[in-house]
């Protein structure tokens, strides 16, 4: 590669990196700038006005943190549900040939083609009747509908990658199917399962429509921010946006080596 081409390549890479990062940086400036930054003109490009006061104001924004806690609960429950239901189903798909496996895969893939709106509308009515309306658990149930199929497919491919001979050897040495799974398969699949559960967490964390329709007083962070869009001061919205983004950035970092495996499997 000529030096000229080399330079061109790296400037293109740099521009694309800046395109992703600069908007997040500016949102962070807006979030930590407190009340003052909203009306500041022209806006600063460096964190000049940042002080402990503005930081304290950020931490004291009340509704946002309450909503964040609901989001964490819902996402946590969604994650547990996705693993509880997805791991056994993934194991079945990976280790057995059985009649109906094809239709089961079809059911799982179907969940992808439908907008969340179509599930959330009637479930509002049912959830009110069952007392699940306006609870983190109710929101988590609906989010798990999106997360379980994904967890199932990822677990299936993880277990498929672990040789069945290892498990059979464990049975020879006296393990039952369950203990064989727990002592041999699970430890080997653990990093992948961790990545899949983080994914389930973020899926719930980010979902807006169902969360907004299914909650009133105990809103998730996304539902809260959507409901105050036109009324709350901008710096509160920026703070909320930043709290929404930070876990996602960390999540992508944690699973960066598995991105292809996850999206490759998840979408075929």
């Amino acid at each position, binding site marked *: 590669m000529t030096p000229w081409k080399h330079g061109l*390549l790296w400037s293109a890479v740099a521009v694309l990196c800046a395109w992703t990062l600069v908007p997040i940086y500016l949102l962070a400036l807006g979030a930590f700038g407190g009340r003052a930054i909203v009306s500041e*003109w022209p806006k600063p490009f460096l964190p000049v006005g940042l002080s402990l006061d503005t930081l304290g104001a950020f931490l004291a924004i009340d509704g946002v943190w309450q909503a964040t806690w609901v989001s964490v609960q819902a996402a946590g429950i969604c994650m547990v549900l996705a693993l509880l239901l997805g791991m056994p189903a993934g*194991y079945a798909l990976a280790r057995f040939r059985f009649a109906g496996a094809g239709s089961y895969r079809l059911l799982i893939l179907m969940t992808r*083609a439908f907008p969340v*709106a179509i599930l959330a*509308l009637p479930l509002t009515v049912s959830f009110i009747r069952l007392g699940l309306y306006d609870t983190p658990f109710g929101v988590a149930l609906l989010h798990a509908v999106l997360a379980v199929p994904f967890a199932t497919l990822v677990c299936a491919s993880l277990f498929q990658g672990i040789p069945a001979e290892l498990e059979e050897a464990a049975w020879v040495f006296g393990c039952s199917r369950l203990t064989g799974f727990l002592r041999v398969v699970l430890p080997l699949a653990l990093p992948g399962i961790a990545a899949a559960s983080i994914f389930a967490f973020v899926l719930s964390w980010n979902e807006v429509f169902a969360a907004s*329709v299914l909650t009133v007083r105990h809103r998730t962070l996304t539902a809260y921010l*959507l409901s105050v869009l036109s009324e709350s001061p901008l710096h509160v919205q920026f703070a909320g*946006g930043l709290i929404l983004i930070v876990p996602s950035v960390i999540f992508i970092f944690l699973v960066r080596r598995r991105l292809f495996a996850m999206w490759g499997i998840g979408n075929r």
Partner: protein
Amino acid sequence: MRRAGALPYLLILPSVLFLGVLFVVPLVQTALLAFQQGGAWSLDDWHRMAEDLNFTDAVRNTFSVVLIVVPLQCALALGMTMLLRHVRHGRDLILWVWSIPLGISDLAAGLVWLALLTDQGWLNTLLFKAGLISGPQAWLTYETPMVLLAGIIVAELWRATAIVFVILLAGVQLLPKEYEEAAEVFGASPWQRFWRVTLPLLRPSLQTALILRTVLAFEMFAMALALGGRNFPVMVSEAFNWQYGSQDYGVAASYAVLVMAISVAATLVYLVALRVPAEQRA
């Protein structure tokens, strides 16, 4: 693979029950909500949806965004993929940065771009310092519909190009190098190699990416609400407003069914138009 009686069925049973109750049943219920009125079959909700003032705008806005954003995203993601192939050092870091938007919801992305595009935001600061405007200027109102549309398109490009990029990059990594090397031996230019060899081989990944992206683009609504508020209705935001604001489940369900029908139709079009030959299937 083994045959083992009832065990696999016991293992999938919980998830089948779960998806049955929380996916299949609501699906049918929404369809009934949309096509029934007081227990009898009726297209009443559909009429009310189509006669609503916002309906035409919502459909037009949704399609404008999807038809402009999806091709641009594919082009940009292809460019990023080809670029990353030439990078030797720091691939991991670049890959991470470029994939960050994967984890960002459309609401959060809307708030990010609201910070930039609002009256006293950073875009106007730049324009001001460049001497192009004399003071704060409103872009996201009904008076500047084209700028509002452009803002939403830029925000969608920022947020959702990453998913196309990751799918395409995964596809590129599976391609055998031999084809391109053969083309090079026979004197094909880099440009010819891309159009005649790499791109056709990438068709399965491109199909996957297009289907997923299009379905998700039709679902975008929180970003439109964050940036445009009532000035930029899209189909899902209308479903949301009918349900949430007007408590009219019938019309909301009609919108949901309409979005679903369009998504399914788009998926079928891609499946036929970009048919993947059997020998190329993974």
